[in-house]
């Protein structure tokens, strides 16, 4: 479990990162918090020729409160999200979720951009991004584009960000006073990847977004559940049951701790518990 040799670059600007990514022969891999990449390299599942450490670019570590949105730099670490008053005020769902992500040692290093960019199907933050209907700012030498959350996650470890692009920001709408949020996850030990989890956002106009994680090949929103739940000011038992029935639409994917049948059962449980939490 030792990584093969690689070159190491630590640019101090975004253009510096992007110009390295353009050079295909370098076979670059971006290093943010390293909490997934380092084990994968040590297992020799990832064998990049060049590691591009993006922690030298200070603007990637900013949390910015703009009139319209909260912009979170890709290098903002979980622990910084956890401690941020701005996040607590305007993105309370993130504050609810962070304590469930692994353990303090991992939260001290892991970053929001790393989690969004990896698209691990059982990770929390992709589902948060989906439930909040946020956007991902992606930069390359060709320019900057914003990819909406619901088009960003393509599959297991697969996103709309290509190998010569860098996630620069996560852009989230600011929470409004009457918005409500729900979250629930089930894991075998505290901090493990979830066996099933869900993030829910209810807008002021009673539009509901529901994003599951840990149940399928990627974090995903389920339109049929959202349809059942939207327009209701609160969730009666029968609405919850209808939403649970709609959860059967998910293409469940099993893992070592839970087969597809278990995932289906647990998806309904987390949905019910998250909804009860926002009553």
């Amino acid at each position, binding site marked *: *479990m030792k*990584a093969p040799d690689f070159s190491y670059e630590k640019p101090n600007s975004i253009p510096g990162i992007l110009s390295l990514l353009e050079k295909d022969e370098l076979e670059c891999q971006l290093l943010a918090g390293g909490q997934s990449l380092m*084990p994968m390299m040590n297992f020799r599942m990832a064998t990049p020729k060049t590691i591009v450490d993006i922690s030298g670019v200070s603007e990637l570590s900013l949390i910015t409160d703009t009139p319209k949105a909260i912009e979170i730099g890709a290098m903002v670490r979980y622990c910084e999200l956890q401690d941020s008053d701005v996040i607590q005020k305007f993105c309370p769902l993130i504050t609810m979720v962070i304590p469930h992500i692994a353990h303090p040692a991992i939260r001290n290093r892991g970053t929001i951009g790393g989690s969004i960019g990896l698209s691990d199907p059982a990770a929390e933050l992709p589902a948060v991004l989906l439930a909040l209907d946020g956007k991902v700012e992606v930069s390359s030498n060709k320019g900057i584009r914003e990819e909406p959350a619901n088009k960003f996650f393509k599959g297991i470890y697969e996103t709309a960000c290509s190998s010569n692009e860098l996630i620069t920001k996560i852009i989230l709408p600011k929470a409004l006073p009457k918005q409500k949020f729900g979250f629930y996850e*089930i894991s*075998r*030990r505290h*901090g493990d990847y979830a066996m099933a989890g869900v993030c829910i956002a209810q807008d002021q106009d009673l539009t509901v977004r529901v994003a599951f994680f840990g149940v399928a090949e990627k974090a995903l929103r389920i339109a049929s559940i959202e349809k059942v739940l939207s327009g209701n000011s609160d969730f009666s038992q029968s609405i919850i049951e209808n939403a649970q029935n709609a959860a059967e639409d998910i293409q469940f994917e099993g893992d070592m701790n*839970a087969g597809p049948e*278990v995932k289906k*059962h647990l998806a309904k449980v987390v949905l019910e518990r998250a909804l009860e939490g926002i009553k």
Partner: protein
Amino acid sequence: MTGPATVFDKPTDYIGKSIPRSDASRLLRGKGHYVDDIQLPRMVHAVFLRSPHAHARIISIDIKEAEKAKGVIAIYTGNDIAKHVKPYVGVLSHLPGLRSPAQYPLALDVARWQGEPVAVVVCSSRALGEDALELINITYEPLPAVTDTLDALSSESPLIHGEYDSNLAWKREVEVGSLDKALSGDDVIVIERQMKFGRHTGVTLETRATVCDYVPGDDELIMYYAGQAPHMLQFILAKHLSMLEENVRVVAHDIGGSFGIKVHTYGDEIATAIIAKLLKRPVKFTADRLESFVTDIHARDHVVNVKIGVRKDGSIVGIGFNDFTGIGPFSMYPRTSAIECNQILNLTGAPYQFEHYQAVGNVVFQNKTLMCQYRAVGHPIAMAISDCMLEEAARVIGMDPVQIRKKNLIPDDAYPTKSATGMRFDDLSHHACLDKLLEIMNYDKLLSDQEEHRKKGIYRGIGFVSLVEVTNPSPMFYGIGGAPIASQDGATVRLDAAGALHVSSSVTEQGQGTNAILQQIAADVFGVSIERVKVTTGDTATVPYGGGTWASRGAGIGGEAMLQAAYALKEQVLSTAAVILQAKAEELDIASGEVVLKSSGEQKISLGDLAKIVYYRGNELPNDLQPELIATRHYRVTDFPFVFTNGAMAAHVEVDTNTGLIKILHFWAVEDCGRVINPQLVDDQIRGGVVQGIGGALYEECVYDADGQMQNASMADYLVPMASEMPEITVAHVETFTKTSVLGAKGAGEAGTGGAPAAIMNAVNNALSPLNCGIWQMPMTPERVLRALGKI
């Protein structure tokens, strides 16, 4: 036990007190000295290529490209290594019929488990060695893998060893009374279940590691070793590498946990020693976590078909079971992989009185990592078989689980006595432990709490276990069967010229505090301040000969040897002091480093002054006095095959019937380990043991697919309990001193691991009982709980 009975005539200074470990400060400052910290001049690294297949014929190995890789010094295949080693066979003569083929450090023609070493690259660094491994080209012919223990015994099953007629390694049958006849009685209620216990492993913080160095001029091999039994390994290396035993030195410095994992013969470690000899330079091998998961011994892996018969009054008529255990492709050398099964046959039902017992053990080869002795060998299975069935019986006949225990536990005044299986017991206290347990857990309050919560749809359960633990083994454990494993241990105590004590012992320190209790005993018995006692363990060149630390023997056997040695030195010092002081030895004593008058405590001469006379100014002594300021004593258990301990434990759990998750709300353990030398260390041994028991009950399992591939060989996927999963664990003691020693200490290291799984399973089934279902498989995962509940 005859001996210095006067040791405990007066209050002790250290024994029985929670003296902080003197090595804790050094270790917490990061100044531990572990094997991987060793850097020797010219040292190189052994990097093993391991079979990716569970079962495959090795057609060819091409090392040409790898030999040219950067940093590579040598590459050896299994056949290259085999030329330099006598093969080993994991059988013992007191386990008649046990069979296992000769084993070599690396696979020869056939690889028989995923992870078996096949070739080894010797390289200037571990990382470069891993690069070179990728260039070795091996052609395998995959063979069908035998993974399921029961299928392995079918006549259709492929054979793992062509020279045998089946995959059965060993079978033992025990019959006491006549169970079938007894259970057919009209008044007998018979309950049958199939219980399953998953494979798990020890997960030591410090992985297995060795640095081997060879000194050609002296023909000396030095092995730095992260293990538990240096003298055993000294013998094994000498025998199988054809060296003189005195030319093999095994040295253990600090060790980061072992739990029985590090008391076996591993091919990669033996190969590292061979390579050091071949290359005449130091070679390091440190297992990484992936290697640990597929090569450290695994444990448990049992399917048990069990029945119990009880009468309406709760009395046990008899217990019968058929145990099938999978041990991997070989029986581990030299302790064998049949001991766990043997223990289960010996120990099931041991706390209880009953007449009829019928047990069959089947030890089965499979293409998985080798299975062998891990903390609480066999105990968690034996205790779960009898105690989970006993509580199930209580539910069936409508009796309280405590009452059914009290009905059947051997009375505290019945000792010495024997169990149904012939185990000889003395100095046990099942009823006293259970009473103390009920007192500290407040059972009645828990019952009313359970009632209240059930009304709200919250399912809480309370479960118990009464257990015995094999500790302080005599030669009857291994030595009798021909294993090079000492059952006796020695201690040497020496007074230096400054009046300090230097003590050494053949038991070993793996992080549990052995050295600390040796220090306490020596200081207390001899009469010096504990700060003036220096302890050496783990080096075959300097410590007395002995077995090391396993089977909960460090305190009970190593401690007694230390007591005897310290007492012997004290007598020598006092007889010398008597001459110097022109007093009678029996009127003198030693206290706080001074020779004193027993009657008044008046200080007569300091130990430093006395030693200086002896060492420097012997001219002041009579010519016929040649004082020995050093004493060595050895100790083995003679009166019994083992010194059993006992205990009672309880778990309080909450089962989330929608998610299948089990939360342990509280755990209580009452343990009778005889004299408690250091309460803090014993309590933490119990707690650590309970946590490993929680692991086996709820989390830990080596998951294999049908092809024999381990699916979860990483710390992300193999779940050990972490701080968040550890409940409050309350520990209390009953102290019934063993009469087999002056110290009176029994072992305490394994009780938690042995008892906790049964208590937790009982608590879960108690919680589930209103829902008319139960779970009989460990670990009790959410998926298994949901299936038991019929939710999926």
